[in-house]
């Protein structure tokens, strides 16, 4: 019994060889193997059945011929007509080419007439001895000419002797061999047809597969313009279809990726320039306001120093204090613009409310707020983003929209946080989805929201005002930035 390991080993070895050949060879091998197996199996089966059938027929023939000979020779033996017996044997032998010998024994079992003449093969006489009650007795023996079927029939119930006729296998063997060779020839023919058809079959099967492989290589190199012909409406056809679909999807995805990369590059540029702008503004503010204020304070201090009388000194000191307070406010505002402490101190909702109040105060635009206090639960980085979006949007409203009214809504709607800033300003022409064309502000908002896994929408028409909407999932992604 072959152990499982060695069986596995042999299977692997077989597959190492069989798996390495081309599909053409595989199909060829399968078809040839099946045809040859079928042909050889069928041939062996037919050969066996034919052989058996012919042997049975020979047995019947042997019994009938020998019985007939026995009855025809009875009188001849009884009246001792040896010549007629001799003629009978010769005639019978001529009529049946399968007969190898005829042997007529007298009642004492001694040869009376035989086709061997005055001699006998050793052992033949004793080989097949029927008893007088037997109707016949069959016996098979081997000889240099192949096997021989010996039929023995008692003549006149054995009172006149025994008729023995030997039938040789040659005609059976010849017929069986002829049928076998014809079957094998047919197998060869079918094998040839099998080879041709398998070549055709492999061509049909491998052509789309090879086309797919070529196209896949091209796609791998980044060429997404590949289109594979759908040859047939079968599994491979389906595969081709899927491949084409995949290529198209890949092309779209590649385009989207390129666009995103372009936007990212643009954004980095804008971030850097925005940083520079911010620094420039801070520098300007420091130079224009704080430095000027400090210069003015130095002038004021000189005035205090040069004041002669107490009332004028007091006045100068009072002015100086006033000047210092104004300067301090300016510095505070600058610091707030950089980072609103109010967000840290008050929370998101209060911070937005406070900012809206500030804008109303500073710009005169009437701003209505409807803010859900539950939105304070937002994580800090999300809260900062929401605040910055609200800040940017409101700043845009104040700076550009020439609106008289604005509405801010922040709420928790069906598992999402939704921020909406609407105004009745002049609006602008926003192409659908083009949220980033309006510079860093809008694009920055969009990018920030997207990073948190949310969506950003911008609706605007000329003269119809603008709606900015940011929707965040309840548990926004961690800001990777």
């Amino acid at each position, binding site marked *: 019994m072959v152990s*499982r390991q060695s*069986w*596995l080993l042999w*299977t692997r070895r077989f597959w190492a060889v069989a798996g390495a050949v081309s599909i053409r060879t595989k199909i060829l091998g399968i078809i040839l193997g099946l045809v040859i*197996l079928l042909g050889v*199996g069928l041939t*062996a*089966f037919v*050969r*066996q059945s034919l*052989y058996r059938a012919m042997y049975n027929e020979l047995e019947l023939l042997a019994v009938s011929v020998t019985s007939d000979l026995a009855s025809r020779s*009875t*009188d001849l033996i*009884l*009246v*001792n*007509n040896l010549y007629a017996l001799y003629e009978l044997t010769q005639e019978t032998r001529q009529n049946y080419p399968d007969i*190898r*010998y005829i042997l007529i024994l007298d009642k*004492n079992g*001694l*040869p009376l007439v035989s086709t*061997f*003449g*005055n*001699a*006998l*093969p*050793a*052992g*033949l006489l004793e*080989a097949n001895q029927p008893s007088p009650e037997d109707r016949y007795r069959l016996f*098979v*023996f*081997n*000889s*240099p*000419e192949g*096997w*021989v079927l010996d039929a023995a029939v008692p003549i*006149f119930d054995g*009172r*006149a002797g025994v008729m023995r006729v*030997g039938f040789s296998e040659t005609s059976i063997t010849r017929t069986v061999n002829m049928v076998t060779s014809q079957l094998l020839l047919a197998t060869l023919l079918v094998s040839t047809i099998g080879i041709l058809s398998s070549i055709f079959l492999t061509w049909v099967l491998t052509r789309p597969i090879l086309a797919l492989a070529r196209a896949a290589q091209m796609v791998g190199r980044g060429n997404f313009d590949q289109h594979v012909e759908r040859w047939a409406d079968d599994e491979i056809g389906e595969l081709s279809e899927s491949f084409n679909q995949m290529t198209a999807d890949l092309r779209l995805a590649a385009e989207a990726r390129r666009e995103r990369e372009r936007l990212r590059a643009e954004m980095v540029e804008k971030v850097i320039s925005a940083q520079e702008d911010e620094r420039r503004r801070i520098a300007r503010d420091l130079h224009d306001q704080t430095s000027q204020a400090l210069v003015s304070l130095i002038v004021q201090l000189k005035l205090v120093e040069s004041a002669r009388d107490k009332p004028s000194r007091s006045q100068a000191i009072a002015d100086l204090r006033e000047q210092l307070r104004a300067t301090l406010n300016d510095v505070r505002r600058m610091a707030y613009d950089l980072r609103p402490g109010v967000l840290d101190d008050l929370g998101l909702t209060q911070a937005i409310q406070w900012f809206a109040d500030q804008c109303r105060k500073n710009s005169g635009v009437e701003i209505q707020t409807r803010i859900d206090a539950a939105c304070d639960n937002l994580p800090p980085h999300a809260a900062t983003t929401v605040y910055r979006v609200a800040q940017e949007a409101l700043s845009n409203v104040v700076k550009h929209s020439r609106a008289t009214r604005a509405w801010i809504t922040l709420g928790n709607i069906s598992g999402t946080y939704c921020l909406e800033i609407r105004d009745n300003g002049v609006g602008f022409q926003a192409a659908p989805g083009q949220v980033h064309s309006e510079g860093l502000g809008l694009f920055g908002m969009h990018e920030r929201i997207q990073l948190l896994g949310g969506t950003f929408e911008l609706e605007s028409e000329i003269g119809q005002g603008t709606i900015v909407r940011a929707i965040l999932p309840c548990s926004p992604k961690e800001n990777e930035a």
Partner: protein
Amino acid sequence: MPRSYGWSLFVLFGFLITVLLPACSSQPAPYIDLNALTPITPQREAEIKPLRVAVSAVISPQGTVESYTLLLDYIAEQLGRPVELVQRPTYAEVNRLVEKGDVDVAFVCTGAYLLGEREFGMEILAAPVVDGEAAYHSWLIVPADSSAQSLADLRGKTFAFTDPLSHTGRLYPTYLVYQMNDRPETFFGRTFFTYSHDTAIQSVANGLADGAAVDSLIYIHLIQREPSLAKRMRVIHKSPPFGIPPVVVSPNIRPQLRAELQAILLSMHENPTGQSALAKLDIDRFVTLESSDYDSARELENFLANIATETP
């Protein structure tokens, strides 16, 4: 995966084994070289020489074996010596065997006896008595549907003779034809020899012949064994009695053996075994007959012999 491969291979091998194995497996048969011939060694003479008894082909060879086996067995038992039955296709051959001493005793036909007596002095050992008389007749038979009433009506027809030497089967009908101043060759349309009486009877019964002359004893014997035959034939003529076919011996037989055999045959009906053997042959007993008892037959033969010498 390998498991499933294993199953398919197993099934494949199973298929091949069932198909191919029986082709290879044949039980070992003995071996005889048909070309290595060894001469047949001549049979050694039997230590006790059997008594050879010839029986003329009055009935077919197989019928002869069936009918005479009991009688021969009885003789063998009485004689204390095996008896061998010898048959020959024609009466002439049996005569030849008697003449040469190749057989000791022969059951011959009357015609053959007369010829043998003339040629080499064939002697009568005994003769059977059937139905109370030691004589027999020649009966002319025709198929049951035949319109023939006498031999004259068979002119131009097919006639079956038994043996050329048969008294009842050939000589008597030939005699009748000559009585009508004709010859068998011209009188009958066609004639053929059957070489035994039962075959002649069968020939008429089966319509092969339009008529035949047969031994009355054989006819009765056959009708008894096969009663249906009687419906298929008619007897249209019966001859006067002739001396019954005798048991003969060669003139050169040892007198002691001759006497012994004669005693066995003549006393056979007194022994129960002998009686049943006789019954098988429809024989009452054996008696001794003289050559003169065959005079009527002899006359007929002489008549024919004269005709033969007269007609060139």
